[in-house]
């Protein structure tokens, strides 16, 4: 009689892969991954769709694979978005308390958040997330202002927003398959949900999702996301640098990077040469390992440094006692941990995907942090609906029993 669990699907249209994760969530919040489907991505660069021609087919393939594994039909998804157009803005909303007794109500809170949400956004941008930082009453910081008294309510919020048309592009691609988009979420936030423990979020942690086209960063402290953003640089840049520096084709650069790549400059093998596979008309060649590492090191160090500089103005990095957590496909690069430690001067670890009850280890790969997190993001809202539906059902049952 009561349907107290529900299916949620997270979908990432990544630069390197399209990935759908099917999960279910129970009324008590239990989250289980039921299935995962993938396809190699095409026409996506730096996290944004540049050529949608091949997408429908690939999306269909990824969704179908996930459907079959989970044995459910996918009707709607929680869609991830990223790209260099996504930005953060810190807003402060003000709202005078109108009631005679100056008691702050839930409506006042809604009003002040609504005001804070759209302030200062560029004309073509659309808010993706509104994250409350804290409230203030007549200048006094407070966590929950409801039922407190004051003349003026203030809200500090973090708004993540992106270019409306580009966000629409991703949504349109999914809708063209007759799959509904429940909502969009920023990939970085999703990864953070999948990877960080409650304790890390409390202590203060920087999460980096290093993908193929973009690197997303999210700073969480006291359980609240304080900063988030994207740098449109990722593993593709590493590969492309190798193409230029070693004069090899992109496919080979990608293979070499994944198989033998490293960001380390104190590797005993630096004097070695690396034999390139011959065949396909290519003459046998060898490359200098030191060049190989230097090219990768330069790119990855620069990427981390840029993010460090971006954050250094706004965050006291040394206060992040949870350190840095890396995820995304590129986080598997050998030597990256040490490199990140030296750039951020913080302990660094690789993220583990949490909360994958019901699924085998194969889901615990850094590439899947985003799609798992997207499903998790959806599960929070679905769980709330379930909970209210359950209350409603109980009330209806009671009226049915006693009302007649």
């Amino acid at each position: 009689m009561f349907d107290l669990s529900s299916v949620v699907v997270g979908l990432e249209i990544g630069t390197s892969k399209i990935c759908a994760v099917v999960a279910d969530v129970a009324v008590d919040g239990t989250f289980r991954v039921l299935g995962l489907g993938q396809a190699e991505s095409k026409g996506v660069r730096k996290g944004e769709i540049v050529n949608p021609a091949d997408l429908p087919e690939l999306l269909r393939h990824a969704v179908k694979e996930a459907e079959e594994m989970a044995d459910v039909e996918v009707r709607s998804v929680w869609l991830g978005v990223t790209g260099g157009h996504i930005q953060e803005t810190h807003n402060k909303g003000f709202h005078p308390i109108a009631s005679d007794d100056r008691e702050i109500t839930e409506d006042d809170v809604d009003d002040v958040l609504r005001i804070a949400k759209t302030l200062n956004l560029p004309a073509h941008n659309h808010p993706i997330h509104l994250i409350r930082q804290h409230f203030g009453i007549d200048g006094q910081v407070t966590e929950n202002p409801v039922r407190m008294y004051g003349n003026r309510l203030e809200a500090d919020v973090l708004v993540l927003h992106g270019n409306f048309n580009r966000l629409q592009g991703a949504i349109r691609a999914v809708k063209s398959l007759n799959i509904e988009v429940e909502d969009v979420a920023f990939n970085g936030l999703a990864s953070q949900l999948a990877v960080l423990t409650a304790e890390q979020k409390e202590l203060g942690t920087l999460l980096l999702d290093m993908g193929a086209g973009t690197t997303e960063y999210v700073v969480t402290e006291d359980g609240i996301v304080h900063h988030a953003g994207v740098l449109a640089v990722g593993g593709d840049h590493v590969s492309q640098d190798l193409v230029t520096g070693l004069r090899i084709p992109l496919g080979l650069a990608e293979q070499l990077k994944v198989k033998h790549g490293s960001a380390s400059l104190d590797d005993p093998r630096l004097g070695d040469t690396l034999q390139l596979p011959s065949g396909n008309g290519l003459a046998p060649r060898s490359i200098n390992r030191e060049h190989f590492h230097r090219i990768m090191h330069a790119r990855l160090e620069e990427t981390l440094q840029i993010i460090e500089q971006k954050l250094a103005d706004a965050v006291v990095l040394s206060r992040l006692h949870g350190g840095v957590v890396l995820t995304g496909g590129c986080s598997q690069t050998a030597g990256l941990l040490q490199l990140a430690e030296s750039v951020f001067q913080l302990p660094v670890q690789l993220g583990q995907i949490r909360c994958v009850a019901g699924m085998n280890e194969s889901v615990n790969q850094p590439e899947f942090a985003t799609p798992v997190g997207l499903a998790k993001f959806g599960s929070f809202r679905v769980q709330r609906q379930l909970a209210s539906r359950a209350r409603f059902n109980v009330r209806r049952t009671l009226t049915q029993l006693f009302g007649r």
Partner: protein
Amino acid sequence: MNSPSILPTVKVIGFGNAGCAMVGRVFQQGLLSGAEFLVLNTDQAALASCPVPSQLCIGLPVTRGLGTGGDVALGRSAAQRDAAVIRAAADARLIFVVVGLGGGSGTGGAPVFARLARESGALVLAIATTPFEFEGGLRRANAETGLQELRAAADAVIVLPNHHLARLLDERTPVTEAFRVVGERAAEAVTGLWRMLAQPGILPVDFAGLERLVRGRHAESAFASVEISGEARVHDAVVKLASHPCLDEGRALARADALILNLAGGPELSLAEIDRASREIGRLCRDNVEILVGTSVDEALAGRLRITVIPAWRADTEVPALPLPGSASSERRDCREPVSARTPQRSELPDADHLQTLETDLTQSTTLSLPIRASSSRRGHKSNHQPELNLFPASRGRFDNTPATIHNNENLDEPTFRRRNLVLN
């Protein structure tokens, strides 16, 4: 339509079949009121089908009015034979010579024309296309010869390589259609330049400024124009220019000795925007670049901003494509006369009220986005002495067709090891 005082006599000359076709198009568009048009060819039939009324069939005794069949030497001698007629035709202050390089008549004749015209005092700007790859080695070789001669003869050459266009065209595009598009782009370059000179602006690019900038430089130039709307339009436009294929992804800016920058917008175009755009674009160039800034207001552009840039550099020196602080760019071989950077100071700009009162009458507002790029010697190439025609520019690989990732005015799509000057050997 425009105040004639701004422009001296201007002639637009088409040479060879392609030149005639391209100038015919500009003529028919009718946007260059006040300019005179003239087409020259060795091919009588081609002239007959050209809408431009002023025509000169040259070298009749040697070609019998049948063209040269790709013979550059023949095209050159045809023009030289008729030097007197050509000199008489070259009676203008500013002459645009439009030519499709690769054949015989235009390739051989346009440099002759340019030289004669310059000798009689005109400022000569050549606009030359180079052949598509599929046209083969002979035309390419012809074009290389022609370009070198043209560079030596004209004050400046704006090179529009067709192969840039090929990337943007569908594979199945018929050849005639491809040439039509080429012609359209060339026409846009001519019109764009004209517009810069002729359109009333807050800071008009005047002929004297243009002359000062290009006269005698024998410079090579590129031409790119972007049109952007929206809140962050200045920034977006600059980002687009920094990765523009016609500017070799911004390298043409980094390499420029001189830069003509034109901003056109609707009546809302603000001084702050002009200031910001010229500063941001200036930052993509090297320190001592001379910038000529012009602005114009065009009601048809309401809400949109069009930025046109023509970076010019001396073709006889090899400069590293992206000058880095302390890098080889300081060791250039030539000793150019010192030039002063000229970006507008606030005090030079008229006040905002003035903006509202400026009248405009230009209706045309096409998006100019020319897949053009001047030939250049590529970074890392051996020869330091011979300028080479780079017909196959480096592809941006994975990042083709994406906006560049710009951070602190650096294009992060460029390999880090290069920007950091890491030596790999």
